[in-house]
């Protein structure tokens, strides 16, 4: 135990290196969020950055203090005596109140953004149904009537893999696809369903994530702001093929979207029904 002071110095060093590595790699964005491609994602990224700044400062501060104390007050001689010190109310109150204040700010900002993102979609939003199954995504678009036909797992069969109610008139003209296309800069509201187990509709570039829950319909609305192809990985463990459950999302201009949509089959053709 005599020479234990060296470990204090080492510990201080290690912690400083840790802080440096953290600050450089994160501050310099060596690895970062996927490039943003949606409107509401801006809010998420902002909050992320703010939180990073706050927690980053705390991280640096606490670690530097830790390093300093460990280095400075390591045992050096037998005569050295620790400073008997019980508590310091003003100091303790300070470091209770400051985090409390900071957190109040984060809570306010966070919940406000949350309600905006999760709030009701705009009237003109394009409804799309997203159906999760082991291990693929399927998509249903409304036809001319602008309404999605009913979905229920009990309608699922070889010929009706989408599980759309064949008797629902609103569904006849609906269009089905296995790739998700959405128009640029137009609000889209995804109604998310599942045929079997939990899945999660995750579009990293669009900052979209919402679980698909069997037995209920969940919802997420967004406005895509960048043309491009994006992955839709599944983000909720759903079985052996969870890691290969990946969909494709294409964000394109209105015109390209409409012409793509026109080429997709409708429920009626798929089920061999009349329009």
């Amino acid at each position, binding site marked *: 135990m005599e020479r234990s002071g060296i470990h204090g110095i080492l510990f201080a060093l290690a912690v400083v290196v840790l802080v440096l590595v953290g600050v450089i790699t994160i501050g310099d964005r060596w690895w970062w969020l996927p490039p943003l491609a949606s409107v509401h994602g801006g809010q998420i990224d902002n909050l992320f950055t703010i939180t990073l700044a706050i927690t980053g400062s705390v991280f640096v501060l606490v670690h530097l203090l830790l390093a300093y104390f460990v280095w400075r007050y390591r045992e050096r001689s037998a005569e050295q005596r620790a400073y008997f010190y019980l508590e310091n109310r003003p100091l303790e109150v300070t470091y209770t109140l400051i985090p409390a204040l900071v957190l109040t700010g984060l809570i306010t900002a966070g919940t406000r953004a949350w309600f905006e993102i999760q709030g009701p979609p705009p009237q003109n939003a394009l409804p799309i149904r997203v159906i999760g199954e082991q291990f693929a995504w399927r998509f249903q678009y409304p036809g001319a009537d602008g309404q999605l036909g009913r979905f229920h797992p009990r309608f699922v069969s070889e010929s009706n893999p989408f599980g759309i109610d064949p008797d629902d008139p609103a569904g006849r003209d609906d269009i089905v696809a296995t790739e998700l296309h959405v128009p640029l800069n137009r609000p889209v509201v995804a109604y998310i369903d599942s045929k079997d187990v939990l899945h999660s509709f995750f579009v990293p570039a669009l900052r979209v994530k919402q679980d698909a829950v069997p*037995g*209920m*319909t*969940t*919802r997420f609305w967004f406005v895509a702001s960048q043309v491009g192809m994006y992955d839709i990985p599944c983000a909720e463990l759903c079985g052996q093929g969870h890691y290969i459950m990946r969909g494709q999302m294409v964000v394109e201009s209105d015109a390209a979207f409409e012409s793509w949509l026109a080429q997709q089959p409708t429920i009626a053709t798929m089920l061999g029904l009349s329009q």
Partner: protein
Amino acid sequence: MADVARPQGEQVGAVHAPIRTYLTVWGWLFVLSAIAYFVDIIHLTGWLKVVLLTVLALMKAGLIMAFFMHLRFERLTLVYAIVAPLILLVAMLVGLVPDGVAVFVRR
């Protein structure tokens, strides 16, 4: 001398109610149960029913805990220590049931 300074042993039941009290409580439990039963069979509905039945159930629970389970004769600290955690069940209720409703809405 030093080892055991605080009161020891047969403390239990040092204070308790006379048998008559138990009989009275028993009687009240019958009465409250009967009222609850009638609240149901006269087909009250809606919030009124829920509130009435909840209040009745809590009254019965209170009587059982206070007299039969002796909380009335225990130290207040024990009463608090037992009742306070039940708040967490209320928290659970408040967390789960509205979510049940939300699920129903989104079926």
